[in-house]
């Protein structure tokens, strides 16, 4: 049985859905952030699999750029989480309800 690009797409869809569920269900800001990373990784997998299927290198270059953007996002996001933690002494996003009317 041949492993086609559709299998990778199916796996990436499963990982993306799990990451989305984690983002919706969990309330720890760090775990939510890691769920976002999981979703980015699954999208990278679709890029690479599609690039192989079509014989194009652009899919892998897209993965490189996604990685760069994700690295920048991780540094800034973690700095924000640390700043919020220093201010509120909590990493639970439900505690940040100051704008609630």
């Amino acid at each position, binding site marked *: *049985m*041949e*492993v*086609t*690009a559709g*299998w*990778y*797409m*199916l*796996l*990436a*869809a*499963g*990982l*993306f*859905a*799990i*990451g*989305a*569920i*984690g983002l*919706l*269900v*969990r309330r*720890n800001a*760090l*775990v939510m*952030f*890691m*769920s976002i*990373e*999981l979703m980015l990784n699954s999208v990278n*997998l679709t890029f*690479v*699999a599609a*690039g*192989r*299927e*079509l*014989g194009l*290198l652009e899919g*892998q*270059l897209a*993965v*490189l*750029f996604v*990685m760069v953007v994700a*690295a*920048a996002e*991780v*540094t*800034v996001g*973690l*700095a*924000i*989480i*640390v*700043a919020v933690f220093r*201010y509120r002494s909590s*990493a639970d996003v439900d505690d940040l309800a100051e704008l609630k009317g």
Partner: protein
Amino acid sequence: MNAELVVFVIFAVAALAGAFVLVMARNAVYSAMGLLMTMFSMAVFYILNEAPFIAAVQVLIYAGAVMTLFLFVIMFIGVDKTFDPKETIPFQRPIAIVLGVGLFVLLALAAQGVWVTGSSLFAGEALGTIENVSDELFGNWLLPFEATVLLLTIAAVGTVALARFEISEPRPVAEVVALDEDDASSAGADDASSAGADDASSAGADDASSAGADDASSAGADEGADDAPSRGEGS
């Protein structure tokens, strides 16, 4: 039963298990370990898909640098194992799971619809060797590559700015007055530098009986010769 199928099944199970651990684990460190397993499985899939350079970058950047940063922040913040079952939004958890499963079904249908052609078109040497990737990246994609340099610089500057973020919550006024009175009563003349430098008006009022000056530094210079330079610097 070819080799790629065996490797795919093994690491697909590993990736899904890591993702489940990420979502389910109560302890944030376990979540990070699950994500690490998923990322290593991703590197294996990249090698299977003729992208050895991307696989190396995945291990170096994601599994190495990013996960180290995550673990550092988890240790810095402290692992919070307290769990509050009270939901802010009612039925948030079942609704989220139903929506996630629906998303998976939609994505899976889209994936199966497009990829009906089957086997790989590309055969021969690997597509994403370092030579091929660098030729393409520093040729046609040079301008986007330079733009990522700008993005990373901005991200570094932003991170430093956020790290220097001071908690500038103004102290209550009564607390400030109590601190100044405490200084003046206990320390008196020998330790008056902090009180005099902090609040010129209160120190001036304190020394007004002896010196009669409205400026705190000149009042301090009259009192003692030994602590006069420090008070001059402080004010």
